[in-house]
């Protein structure tokens, strides 16, 4: 993976930490609480850097290697920060047979990043996602919570330009 991502320093605030501790306390007695806690922690920080995993490990009394194991197993957990605008291109089958692979490549070419990466200015990140279930609109991409469907390669440039 590209080196730029590793240089982003962790800058979590006291408020974020307080919020995280609140979440951990709320789940402390639930069975199988690690997943919900990681999900909410990612909501708070936007990603799960090792610093956040360490807090969770200490507070929940779960070994760090297990926290790390779970955080790296699931594709929705990210150890790296995402861009301000998260571009996801659906590469589910219905979208793929209608040409979403070409759309993904076009965006990668426009933003000059590969899947899983973030632009150096922190503005855009690009991911391939599995089916979001909007197969009737294939091919589909999402930018944060905006959905764009029935796309052609020519549409991509204008859509990205809206966020620049």
């Amino acid at each position, binding site marked *: 993976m590209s080196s730029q991502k590793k240089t982003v320093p962790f800058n979590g605030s006291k408020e974020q930490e307080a919020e995280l501790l609140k979440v951990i306390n709320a789940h402390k007695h639930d069975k199988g609480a690690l997943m919900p806690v990681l999900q909410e922690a990612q909501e708070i920080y936007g990603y799960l850097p090792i610093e956040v995993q360490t807090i969770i490990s200490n507070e929940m009394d779960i070994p760090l290697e297990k926290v790390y194991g779970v955080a790296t197993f699931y594709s929705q957990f990210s150890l790296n920060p995402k861009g301000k605008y998260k571009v996801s291109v659906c590469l*589910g*089958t219905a979208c793929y047979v209608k040409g979403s692979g070409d759309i993904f490549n076009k965006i990668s070419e426009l933003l000059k990043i590969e899947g899983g990466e973030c632009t150096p200015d922190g503005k855009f990140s690009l991911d391939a996602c599995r089916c979001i279930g909007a197969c009737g*609109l294939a091919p589909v991409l999402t930018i944060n919570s905006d*959905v764009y469907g029935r796309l052609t390669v020519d549409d991509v440039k204008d859509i990205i330009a809206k966020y620049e």
Partner: protein
Amino acid sequence: MFRSHVLVCGGTGCTSSGSVKIIEALQEEIKKNGLEKEVSVVQTGCHGLCALGPIMIVYPDACFYSMVKEEDVSEIVSEHLLKGRPVQRLLYTETVTEDGIKSLNETDFYKKQHRIALRNCGVINPENIEEYIGTDGYSALGKVLTEYTPDDVIQTLLDSGLRGRGGGGFPTGLKWKLAKGNDADQKYVCCNADEGDPGAFMDRSVLEGDPHVVLEAMAIAGYAIGASQGYIYIRAEYPIAVERLQIAIDQAREYGMLGDNIFGTGFNFDIGLRLGAGAFVCGEETALMTSIEGNRGEPRPRPPFPAQKGLFGKPTILNNVETYANIPQIILNGAQWFSSMGTEKSKGTKVFALGGKIKNTGLVEIPMGTTLRDVVEEIGGGIPNGKKFKAAQTGGPSGGCIPEQHYDIPIDYDNLISIGSMMGSGGLIVMDEDNCMVDIAKFFLEFTVDESCGKCTPCRIGTKRLYEILDKITKGQGTLEDLDKLEELCYYIKDNSLCGLGQTAPNPVLSTLKYFRNEYVAHVVDKKCPSGVCKALLSYVIDADKCKGCTLCARVCPNGAIEGKVKEAHVIHQNKCIKCGACMEKCRFGAISKQ
């Protein structure tokens, strides 16, 4: 009382194409025209015809508006709701006939469907428990708790012949019977809503359109096996479904349909939501339970089966959303009613998500035994742009491609397996002559390589090797021996993998090898991709007779690979061409073709 109800689809498909704004605009226009007391706007779940979204239906006349835009709303309100004149230009064309407006149920898309699991989708407001109760909701639970013993419930399911709709097709009643037979201080009822097959979205639609049906069926399951706690494991990628499920759970608790002493019978049952985090393998039952326990979602060897030792080591049943959605209707209408539909070994109906190269993309529910041809040609409206059907893919990454020679096969569990595919959760993706079958096999293998959890070697390394061989073939570097090697490796992975993911991962390769071997051979021997998909095997050429020498292609070529003088035929230098296709797209004379 309202004189008119306007139903607007609030499923993911229509929401993505703007139905929320339409509802807002509708409410505003209705207010402006002073119709608040006469017209009610209802946000429903999915109607199924996602290709034509956003969808709006106006009752009592049942006018079906398709592809509605925000700008159209004021016309619909002033013309239709105020003056009673349907807006012809927005009506779904199939419902407009010379003698007036046809009912939706008479259109090709709906005519052959039979809706049991999708009964309430697109009909009721999923965020209001009273609308569910108004359509017989929770009366099956009431009937079971007051009139049935747990054994009666299980016998009814056994008699109905209901089989699991998530893929495997295991008899649901038998699963419950096994779990009931194991004594324990605590048992669990789980719902698999981790709909991971790309291109399948029926579970999402049920959860978005009729969430209470799943809660009701889980409570029935709890009663039958003796469990007091249920969990729904749902994909986090389905935010609307998660939200509506949470609303439904809260309302059901408030109305006493979940919680302690349900219907005053002393039966206790509650349900919790657990969100997945994007791992396909968690659709496998043991992996799903490991994930609910808060671990890496890796599968465990079976036995012990979940009915013996499942979630937190306790007897557990796990059924999929669509399976649950059938159960209250089976209880209310009887096992015989259900088993009268379908084929000998596959009873009832199945929901399919039609996608890919098909006109009516969307959700359909058909009796088992309907032929593939009927589904694609009649209900699905056929292939767009006059292209030819090549294959239908069912079962997602675990399934196979069904070629034209099996177009008339009646769809049921056993028939699909006999031709090398499987039912899976019900994704049905249609492919036409422009799709390369080697590329499709590679696409699915890329998926399984990515999603293999890595626990067992045959799956972790085997699928990677399969992918590498396929990649080599699509690049024109394959040999005929590679085809034999592919096949051998496929059977090895099938026989030796730990869980369903690995055991079925080679299916896309095996079925395409079986039915489309000629395409593989074309890649390997002739070094050609007959469908023009695999870039390395393509070349773009200019037909000198058709070329007018307008120079447009030379100007759009990003790599300066096209040469030619004004008004003279141009030439593409193959060594410089990067095969982006920009020239072909731009040529106004059809002089450039792929070979």
